[in-house]
C-alpha cells in the first residue's frame, strides 16, 4: 500500500525515525501520479524538478533539527490552479491565462512552502473556479476515483481527487459557494471552508472576492487541522484577512461532543435530498446524539433566497474581477483586430468558456444603472439577512449540521446543459459563503457505493467547533480509511 495512504502525523513520524526520506515519499507520490492520474486527470501539470529540490531540502532540515520542524516538512502536497505559484504556470483552468507565469506565490502557498511542504504541481478545476462538477475546465476532464463516469464535484475537483486517490497528502482548494466542500463530499475526503478572512486571499485568482476562501482538502480531520495551522492568519497584503486567533484546532479534535448543542436547520432538510444521502445524515446525527451532543431543531429562514442572492453577487464581482483578462498581457491574445473593442471581444471570446461568459454577462447586467437597485442592492440585503440568520442561530447552538450536498456524485454530462440544476448542487453550501461563517465537510458514509459528506457549519471564526464535531463524526463513522478501488465498499457507513 502506498505511503500516501497514511495520515500526515504518521508520515511525519516516519520521516523523523528515518523509515523513509522525503525524497522517497516524493518518489512514491510521483509514481502514484504516473500510474493513476492519466485516468483521473487531477493534475494540470506536475513540477517534479522543483519538488525534488524541496524534498532534498526537507531531508536536510529533518536531519539537522527534526524536533522543531513543522509537521508538514517533507509532506507531498499540490495546489488548485487558481493559486499563484511563483515561476510555475497558473491558468485557473482557463485558456485566457495559458502561459501566465506569476512572479509571486499566493500567501497560503508561501506559508506551505515555508513549512516545508513539497509541491507536486497544479490541480485541475472549473474555469476560474466557476462550476460544481469540474466540467468547466478548459483543459481536461477530471474523474471521480470512486466511479470513473462520475464527476468529482467542483470547482476544486482536482484537489479532492488528488487526495482521494492518495496521490498527495493534502491539497489547497478554494471555496466560493461550496467549491471545497462539495468535491470533498463527492470524493470522500475532508474539506474546510474557513471563515471569510481566516486565510489570506493574496495570490488567489479572484472569482468573487467577497466570498472566496482558500482551504485544505485532506484524508483526515487532523490533517486538515495541521494544514490550517500553517495557512491561517492575518496577512498585510490582504486587507480583508483577519487577525482573530485561530484557536487550538488540534486540541479541539480530542474534545468530543458531549454537551455540545448541534443545530439541524429545517430549511436544509426540507430540500430535495436523495434518500441515500439522507440516510447517512440521519445516522450521523444519531451517532452524535449517542456521543452526548444535544440535537436542536433550528431555523435559517432566509435560506430559500440565498441561491438567488448568490447568483447576483458572485457574477457581479466576476464581471469586474475578470476584466483584467483583456488579451493585452496574458493568454492567446486577439491576433489582429480592426479596433480596440474588436480586440477585447476576440480575446475574451477565444479565452473564456461558456459558463464564465454567462456569469460575466449576468454580472454586467445586474450592475448596470437602472438594474443595480433591483438586483445587486437587493441581493446584498438578502445577504445581510442570511448572515443574521446564522448569528441568531449560533446564539442557540454551537454549530449546525447538514448533508454537504443533496446528492452523491452525479454522472458526467448529466447537468452540463442545465445551469440551474448545476447551480442547485450548491444549495446547502453557499449560504455559509454569503454569511462568511466557518464550515467543513467530513466523510460520513456511503450511498450506493459513493461517498457522502456531512457538513458542519460553525460561527464566524469558530473553526474549532467545526473541527471538534467533524473529528467525532470521523471517528464514529470509520470510513476515512476506505479508499477508492477497495473491495467491499459498504452500502452505508457502519
Amino acid at each position, binding site marked *: 500500500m502506498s505511503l500516501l495512504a497514511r495520515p500526515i502525523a504518521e508520515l511525519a513520524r516516519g520521516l523523523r525515525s528515518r523509515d523513509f526520506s522525503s525524497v522517497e515519499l516524493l518518489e512514491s507520490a510521483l509514481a502514484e501520479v504516473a500510474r493513476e492520474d492519466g485516468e483521473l486527470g487531477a493534475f494540470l501539470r506536475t513540477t517534479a524538478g522543483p519538488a525534488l529540490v524541496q524534498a532534498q531540502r526537507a531531508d536536510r532540515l529533518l536531519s539537522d533539527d527534526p524536533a522543531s520542524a513543522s509537521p508538514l516538512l517533507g509532506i507531498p502536497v499540490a495546489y488548485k490552479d487558481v493559486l499563484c505559484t511563483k515561476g510555475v504556470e497558473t491558468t485557473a483552468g482557463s485558456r485566457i491565462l495559458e502561459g501566465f507565469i506569476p512572479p509571486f506565490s499566493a500567501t497560503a502557498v508561501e506559508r506551505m512552502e515555508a513549512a516545508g511542504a513539497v509541491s507536486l504541481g497544479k490541480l485541475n478545476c472549473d474555469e476560474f473556479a466557476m462550476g460544481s462538477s469540474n466540467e468547466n475546465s478548459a483543459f481536461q476532464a477530471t474523474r471521480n476515483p470512486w466511479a470513473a463516469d462520475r464527476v468529482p464535484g467542483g470547482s476544486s475537483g482536482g484537489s479532492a481527487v488528488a487526495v482521494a486517490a492518495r496521490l498527495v497528502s493534502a491539497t489547497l482548494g478554494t471555496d466560493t459557494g461550496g467549491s471545497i466542500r462539495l468535491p470533498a463530499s463527492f470524493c470522500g475526503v475532508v474539506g474546510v471552508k474557513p471563515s471569510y478572512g481566516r486565510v489570506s486571499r493574496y495570490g488567489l485568482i479572484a472569482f468573487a472576492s467577497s466570498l472566496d476562501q482558500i482551504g485544505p482538502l485532506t484524508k483526515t480531520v487532523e490533517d486538515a487541522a495541521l494544514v490550517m495551522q500553517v495557512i491561517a492568519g492575518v496577512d498585510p497584503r490582504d486587507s480583508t484577512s483577519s487577525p482573530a486567533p485561530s484557536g487550538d484546532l488540534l486540541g479541539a479534535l480530542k474534545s468530543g461532543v458531549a454537551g455540545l448543542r448541534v443545530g439541524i436547520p429545517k430549511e436544509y432538510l426540507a430540500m430535495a435530498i436523495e434518500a441515500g444521502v439522507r440516510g447517512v445524515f440521519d445516522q450521523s446525527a444519531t451517532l452524535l446524539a449517542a456521543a452526548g451532543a444535544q440535537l436542536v431543531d433550528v431555523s435559517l429562514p432566509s435560506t430559500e433566497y440565498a441561491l438567488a442572492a448568490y447568483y447576483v453577487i458572485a457574477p457581479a464581482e466576476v464581471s469586474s474581477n475578470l476584466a483584467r483578462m483583456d488579451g493585452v*498581457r496574458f493568454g492567446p491574445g486577439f491576433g489582429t483586430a480592426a479596433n480596440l473593442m474588436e480586440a477585447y471581444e476576440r480575446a475574451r471570446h477565444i479565452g473564456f468558456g461558456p459558463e464564465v461568459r454567462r456569469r460575466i454577462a449576468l454580472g454586467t447586467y445586474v450592475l*448596470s444603472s437602472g438594474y443595480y437597485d433591483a438586483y445587486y442592492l437587493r441581493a446584498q440585503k438578502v445577504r445581510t439577512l442570511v448572515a443574521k440568520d446564522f448569528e441568531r442561530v449560533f446564539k442557540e447552538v454551537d454549530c449546525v449540521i447538514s448533508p454537504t450536498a443533496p446528492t452523491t456524485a452525479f454522472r458526467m454530462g448529466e447537468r452540463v446543459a442545465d445551469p440551474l440544476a448545476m447551480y442547485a448542487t450548491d444549495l446547502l453550501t453557499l449560504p455559509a459563503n454569503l454569511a462568511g461563517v466557518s464550515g467543513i465537510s467530513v466523510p460520513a458514509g456511503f450511498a450506493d457505493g459513493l461517498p457522502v459528506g456531512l457538513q458542519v457549519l460553525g460561527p464566524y471564526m469558530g473553526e474549532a467547533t467545526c473541527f471538534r464535531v467533524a473529528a467525532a463524526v470521523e471517528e464514529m463513522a470509520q470510513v476515512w480509511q476506505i479508499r477508492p478501488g477497495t473491495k467491499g465498499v459498504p452500502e452505508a457507513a457502519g
Partner: protein
Amino acid sequence: MTSIWEPVIGLEVHAQLLTASKMFCGCRAQYLGIPPNSNTCPVCLGLPGTLPVINQVAVELTIRTALALNCEIPEFSKFDRKNYFYPDLPKGYQISQFDLPLSINGCLEFEVEGRVVRAGITRVHLEEDAGTLHHAGEIHNSAFSLVDLNRAGVPLMEIVGEPDLRHPAEAPAYLAALRQTLIYLGVNDGNMEEGSLRCDANISLRRRGTSTLGAKVEVKNMNSFRSIQRALEFELARQTELLEQDQPVAQETRGWSDLEQVTVSQRSKEEAQEYRYFPEPDLPPLVISRAYVEELRAALPELPRAARRRLQERYQLTADQARLIAETAADAAYFEAVVAAGAVPHAAANWQVQNLQALCNAAHVPVSGCRVLPGSLAELVTLVVTEQVSGAVAKEVLAEIFESGARPAEVVASKGLGQVSDTDRLATFIEEALAGNQKAAADYQSGNDRALGSLVGAVMALSKGTANPKLVSQLLRDRLPRS
C-alpha cells in the same frame, strides 16, 4: 451689453498626491523620467491574484485638503470600483469612491478682478491614476499603442466643484486659488504641464434670471490656466450662438484643441460610459475617527488668505506686496526670515518681489531655494536704507551674490562700491561733470529744474554709481546758484 445667456460653470480637478508610494502598492509615486514600466509591481500591473492595500498617507493628505477646503469629513467612507475597459487601466476598473467619498460640502474663496467669490466644493475623494499610452502616430490611425504603467496606481485626489462660477474668467482664478492651497498644504506640486494637476470643466447656459439649466457640456484636455479660460469662452460663444438660433445644445463631452483654439465633440450622451460602480470587495470600509480629524485640523498650516492678511497687517505691506510674497508658503517664510534678520519690512518686500523674484524667475528657482540667503538680502536692504550703497549698486550686488552666494558687505568692500558721501571726492566728480555739460548747467541756472537730473546722472556715471545722489544733488544746487 450683457448677454441674456448666463454661463454656469463647475470644475473637476484631479491632483496627484505627493506621497512616497502609490495608492495601493509599494511602488514609488514619482514616475517621471524613468524607463517605461520600470516603476511597477504585480499589484499595480493588476496581475491576477493581487490585492490592493490602502496608502494611509494618501488618506491623510486627502482629509487635510478637505479640511482646508472647509469640507465635512463623514465618519464612514468606502472605495468603489469604476469599471471600464481601456489599455491604460490594467485591472479593467479604477478603484475610486462613488457614493460615500472621504469628504463633502466644502467651499473655496478666491479673488477675481478685485471681487471675492465663494464657490462650493461638492466633494474631495481619493482614487488611483491610470497608466499612459504612447500611440504610433495619431490615436485614430496608429498601427499600435504602447502601454506604460509607471503612473498606474499613483494616488489621485479628485476635487469636484459646485457649478458656482458665472464667467469664464472665474475658472482660472478658482483653479489658481485651489492650486495655491494644494501647494501650501504640500499635497500636490501644482504642475499642470506634466499633468500632476489636471482640470475638466462643465458648462451649461441658462437665461439670466431663471434657474433652468441647459444641456451640460463637459470640456477636457485643458492643460493651462489660459486654455481653460479660452475653452470656456469658446463654449460660451458656441452655445450662445446655438441658443440664439433656437437650436439645441447637445449634452456631450468635448475636447479642447490648443492648436485650433476650438472644442471638438468627443462623446455624446448616448455614448456615455456605463461604469457599473459597486463597493470594492477587496478593501474594508474606511472609518475616520473624530479624534483623528481634529488632530489633522489642528495641524493644518496657515493657508494663503490667512497668510496674506497676516503679512499685510503685521508688516504694513500693500495688498500687492502681501499677495506676491505669500505666493507660496516658502516665499512667505523667506520674507519673514529677511525681516527677522533686521531688514525694514517695506523695503525688504520690494527687494524680494521686484529684484530677487525677477532673478529667480529667470533662473527657474524659487526664492526660498536661491543662493541669496535671507540674512544676505536683509544686509543688502539695510545697506540701501542706510544709504551706504545706492539702489543701482545694490542691484549689481544682488545679481552678483545671486550667482556666488557671497555676503553683500564683502562684495561692496572688495569692489569699492560703498556709497561716496565725502564732499571733496564728490566735488571732483561734479567739476568734471559740469565741464562736460555746460549747456545743462546753464539751463538749470536759467530755471530748468529737469536739467539738474541730467547733471546728477552724469555725476553718478562718473562715480560708477557710488556717489550719494541726494548729496550730489545738494552740492550741485550750491555750486550753481540761481540769481
